[in-house]
């Protein structure tokens, strides 16, 4: 740098001159007496400091292996081991219980109208508990129930002998497995008892009714012959059975109940 190329025995460089009015010697007793600016000595780093550093690095790495949740953005439970025998032992086994998933879907989407008790609101929202629409009594079939959830229902209807006249919105945005689970749930809660609904059955009806323009009416449904689903195959709704030997950590939906 050219600005600092002056040698040591020349007078102070230009940039210091502006302070010449400042009476340095008289005022700066502190500056006169102080020692030179700090400098470095070069003692080596003590071995024990290196040892502590290495030990901490090993500890830190193992801690992250155990408690990082595999660095996945969806794992929130620190205590879910990501690796090793513990992880295998705590990985979810078998299918999701449709009653658990169904209850969650019901609480999030249905309970506002049909109520957590499944009794509905008299005169406004029909009950699900004991409803022939749900357990496929009278002229109703399982295929009708799936259509109602997928596409909604409007106009005057009759439930448990009481008239209702409102609109239920369509729920096509729910996945097949979610619709299957929530239907299985309402068919087996509040004293109801009916065979479970499978995701495949929902998928089949979703395909058949694709492009159905608006919510069904009671008359529409009556025109469709009632079907009773076979008892669903033993397998759980699709996509929720992890490969048996996979040590992959659980998805949040699966781990949440543990937390």
């Amino acid at each position, binding site marked *: 740098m050219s600005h600092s190329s002056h040698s040591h*025995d020349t*007078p102070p460089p230009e940039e210091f001159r502006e302070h010449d009015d400042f009476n340095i010697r008289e005022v700066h007793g502190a500056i006169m007496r102080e*020692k*030179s600016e700090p400098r470095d*000595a070069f003692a080596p780093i003590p071995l024990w400091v290196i040892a502590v*550093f290495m030990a*901490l690095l090993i500890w830190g790495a193992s801690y992250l292996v155990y408690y990082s949740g595999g*660095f996945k953005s969806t794992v929130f439970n620190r205590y879910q081991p990501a690796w090793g025998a513990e992880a295998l032992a705590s990985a979810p086994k078998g299918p999701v219980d449709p009653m658990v998933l169904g209850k969650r879907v019901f609480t999030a989407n249905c309970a506002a109208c049909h109520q957590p008790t499944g009794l509905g609101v008299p005169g406004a929202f029909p009950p699900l508990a004991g409803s022939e629409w749900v357990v496929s009594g009278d002229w109703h079939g399982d295929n009708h129930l799936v259509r109602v959830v997928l596409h909604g229902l409007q106009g005057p209807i009759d439930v448990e002998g009481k008239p209702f006249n409102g609109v239920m919105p369509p729920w096509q945005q729910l996945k097949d497995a979610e619709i299957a689970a929530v239907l299985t749930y309402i068919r087996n809660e509040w004293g109801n008892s009916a065979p479970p609904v499978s995701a495949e059955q929902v998928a089949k009806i979703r395909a058949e009714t694709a492009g159905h323009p608006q919510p069904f009416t009671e008359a529409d449904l009556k025109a469709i012959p009632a079907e009773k689903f076979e008892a669903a195959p033993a397998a759980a709704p699709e996509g929720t059975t992890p490969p048996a030997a996979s040590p992959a950590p659980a998805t949040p939906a699966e781990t949440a109940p543990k937390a």
Partner: protein
Amino acid sequence: MNPTTQEENHAAVSHAERDRLERAAIDASTRLPVILFYSSAIFWLLVGTVFGLLAAIKMNIPTFLDQWGWLTFGRIRPAHLNAVAYGWASPAAIGTGLWLMARLCRTPLKHAKLLISAAVFWNLGVAIGICAILAGDSRSIEWLEFPNYASGLLFISYGLISVWAVVMFHFRQPGHVYVSQWYILAAFLWFPWLYSTSNLLLNFEQIQGGAQGAVNWWFGHNVLGLWFTPIALATIYYLIPKVLGRPIHSYYLSILGFWTLALFYSWNGMHHLIGGPFPAWMISASVVASVMMVVPVITTAVNFHMTTVGHFNALKWSPTLRFTVFGAVCYTLASGQGSTMAIPSLNVITHFTHYTIGHSHLGMYAFFTMVMYGAIYYIMPRVVGWEWPSSRLIRWHFWLVAIGIVFMVIVLSVGGVLQGLALLNPNVTFMKSLEIARPWLWMRSGSGILLTAGHIVFAVNFTLLLLKFGKRRSGPTLFGKRAEVESEMHAV
């Protein structure tokens, strides 16, 4: 003595003489900004102390002064934090950082008058921000309570200061770059980055949901670790060798300490969110980084200790050294405590208790503030050209704040652990856990009175120095009788 040696002697004398002239010119060039930043810092220290004391008393007597909205706890407490963090600590750090940078770069501060406007902007921002908090316009984000019209002013001012520091570094005299310079340069670059990013993401264009918490604590911890800590470490690295006239023990330890601090400290913030709705890896990475902070801390502790060892009697007479070494020891303690507090099984006890408050005062006061006192005691006589008027006031200042802060940290730690254990015990009601903490909070208020008294003593001595009060002293203001320390007084 042969003629050659005489000539060499003559050259050595003129070299030393030239060094002194150079230092004098540098000190003169930094004079106005440094005095301005220090004076305003001490003003805000007093204001912040009053807020802190009021907030402490309100923990004991909740109805105290509750008839005025602007004096309620929810406003006084953030006013305390912001007054001491942005009013006291930051300007003290800026003044110290600029002076050290100028000295170590051996280059005068050019166009220092422009930095006066930075000091004015900064204080305007702090004043507006504190008033806004008291008026109820706080952003309710811890460490970032200032509304945009105040934080914007701070940012402009800080931008100016950063540019000055970097420019000074660019025009440094050739030669070795000392460890203090690394820390100051890094801190002057890190803080504007932290402050602007977190204000943009939280106060200007808010990001969504839980990510706000992450950004909040990314800032909240980094402002300590990447702004206040490096400035204080730079000050310790300068003052201990300077006063003792010894080289710093190990350049290699300095390097290890600097880079491990930069690497690990920046991850620490998420340990405030243990148990929160964040992906496991974020929290775990932060826990690991917090424990890894042991490395830079023992590294600097060894470096400071080995530099001072054998010269501890200097603490008896040098005010600068006594405050600075007190701070250096407390850095080790505060960081060690912080590492343990990040371990989840201990965090479950201390989180959401007064223990955390004790820890933050150990860091921001017993470490940072004490080091800044040391720096102010060293720098002020040089930039003002007047020795400290009263050795007795310095002694009172030291003992009041040293006893006050040690007492505060102890009672908050004990009270905090008891409170935490009570909160975890399902058989103890919440109200009972508050009662358990109560006597300890009374003692904390007592320690606050000691600190307040110490600050008043300090402010009085500082004002007397600015007014060049009394007779001109011929030597430094030291603890103890002058005759006892004659041999060593030249250093201070």
